[in-house]
């Protein structure tokens, strides 16, 4: 301890409380709005304390509703699509990156350096800079409006491959020697030794990639043309297309809360791995 806390400590708490209030206010307001009726919200100023319409708002959002001039696709379906996509992206990325990192680190083969650089370059090509041609590839392969089209193009990840490569480099050679002497095949070594050793990295990466997959926006916008294949973060944008007066803000905000719930739970419950993953993937 550098010095006695006293007033200094109070100042720190005051700043943090202010910061947290400002940061959490948009989320709090969304929650409050989702517990009122659309009419209550439209009367400015809207109430700042939760109301009694919680169940109706969420029911309307989850299962769709009859009377609506904006988009009224059921959110349950969108959440399902988001979940499948995010899980496929996270698990797929981890799987193919583990395999290719294993090949690059533990084998000598021609063009190994070239392969390494090819993967490295993809770091520099975010989907945003090649929107149209990638869309063309997808439609040529008839992958529009499919789960595969939503997830596979986002699966290739240089960051994950590098992370595993870095980690494999630190695994002692004695382990490899030992399993070779025991007569283990390369795949046996990979499954029985390397993967179990990588557990922490895998968990950290999973948290980051799940959120990445869940929050994708531009790609689903291109890869889907029909409303029943929209993930929730795309679907919510269509709900506010009607303009201030006609939007059912309580339903929109209920959707917003549900759209942020899964990634928020992952972040909060797996906080330790989340921070580790964030720091590791950027190294």
């Amino acid at each position, binding site marked *: 301890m550098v010095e006695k806390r006293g007033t200094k400590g109070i100042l720190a708490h005051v700043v943090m409380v202010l910061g947290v209030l400002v940061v959490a206010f948009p989320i709090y307001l969304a929650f409050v709005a989702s517990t009122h009726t659309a009419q209550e919200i439209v009367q400015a*100023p809207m109430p700042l304390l939760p109301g009694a319409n919680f169940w109706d708002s969420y029911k309307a959002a989850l299962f769709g509703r009859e009377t609506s001039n904006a988009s009224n696709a059921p959110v349950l379906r969108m959440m399902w699509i988001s979940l499948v996509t995010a899980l496929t992206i996270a698990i797929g990325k981890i799987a193919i990156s583990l*395999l290719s990192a294993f*090949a690059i680190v533990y*084998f000598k083969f021609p063009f190994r350096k070239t392969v390494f650089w090819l993967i490295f370059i993809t770091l520099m*090509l975010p989907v945003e800079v090649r929107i149209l041609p990638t869309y063309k*590839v997808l439609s040529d392969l008839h992958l529009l409006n499919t789960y595969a089209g939503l997830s596979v193009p986002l699966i290739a990840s240089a960051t994950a491959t590098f992370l595993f490569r870095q980690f494999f480099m630190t695994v002692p050679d004695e382990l490899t020697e030992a399993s*070779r002497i025991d007569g283990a095949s390369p795949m046996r070594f990979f499954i029985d030794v390397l993967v179990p050793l990588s557990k922490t990295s895998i968990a950290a990466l999973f948290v980051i990639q799940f959120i990445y997959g869940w929050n994708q926006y*531009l790609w689903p916008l291109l890869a889907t043309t029909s409303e029943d294949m929209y993930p929730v973060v*795309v679907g919510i944008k269509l709900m506010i297309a009607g303009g201030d007066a006609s939007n059912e803000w309580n339903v929109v905000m209920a959707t917003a809360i549900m759209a942020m719930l899964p990634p*928020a739970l992952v972040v909060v419950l797996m906080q330790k791995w989340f921070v580790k993953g964030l720091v590791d993937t950027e190294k």
Partner: protein
Amino acid sequence: MEKRVVFRSSWLPWLLILPQMAVIMIFFFWPAGQAILQSLQQQDAFGTSIVFVGLDNFRQLIDDPSYIASFKTTAFFSVLVASIGICLALLLAVFADRIVRGGVFYKTLLILPYAVAPSVAAVLWVFMFSPSLGVVSYALGKINIDWNHLVNSGQATALIVMAAIWKQLSYNFLFFLAGLQSIPKSLIEAAAIDGARPWRRFWTVQFPLLTPTTFFLLVINVVYAFFDTFAIVDAATHGGPGQDTSILVYKVYHDGFKALDLGGSAAQSVVLMVIVVALTVIQFRYVEKKVNY
């Protein structure tokens, strides 16, 4: 770095890298090559005729006042997002670092925006600032500020800047906090014994040691402002009013998908690729330097 012990097999490594190679060839290199090719061609919207036009598309971009305007908008936008976002995060991280008890509580709440998708963040901020029913715009009206981001381009820019900063705050905060916590306590104690007050200790000890983190975050935030904010712009303002918040990425999307100017959109993609490559090189230069410390 090489492994001393390696396995031998002529086919297994190829099988192992096959999935990743297939995906990056089909969805990265092929489209990127197409983008470069298309940027040198002029094609009508129905794809019936293609003419090779060399650098004409790029010349048109330079001559197009709306493209130059979009460039300026993007530059202004990313400077604001990066500078304000980094300062706020640093402020919060410095105080969070001083807190002994309850730190986890604040931290958990501060990292929540990271989990919120950009488009959802945009919806939340649009809701708060909605001219007719927003809570914040209502409060602003009470102090005689008339808020309407649908017609006022300055306010539209302010809205997407705020939403973008809010969304990125968690990330910046976590990196600063990690940076602060990795500074040896003995350094700070030594400064304290020499009579340096907290404010002075921050500027002479902690801040200089945070330079690598700050620089890293600067690059990351610029990249973020350039590319990841597409969803915020699309959901909050649609690039409007007019084209006043149409950042470069939004313009690529709009010109290609809505206006169907394939050559022009491809040329814009190539310009963006050059920018990303430049930023990546800067970032790696810096990483090398850090290793040499």
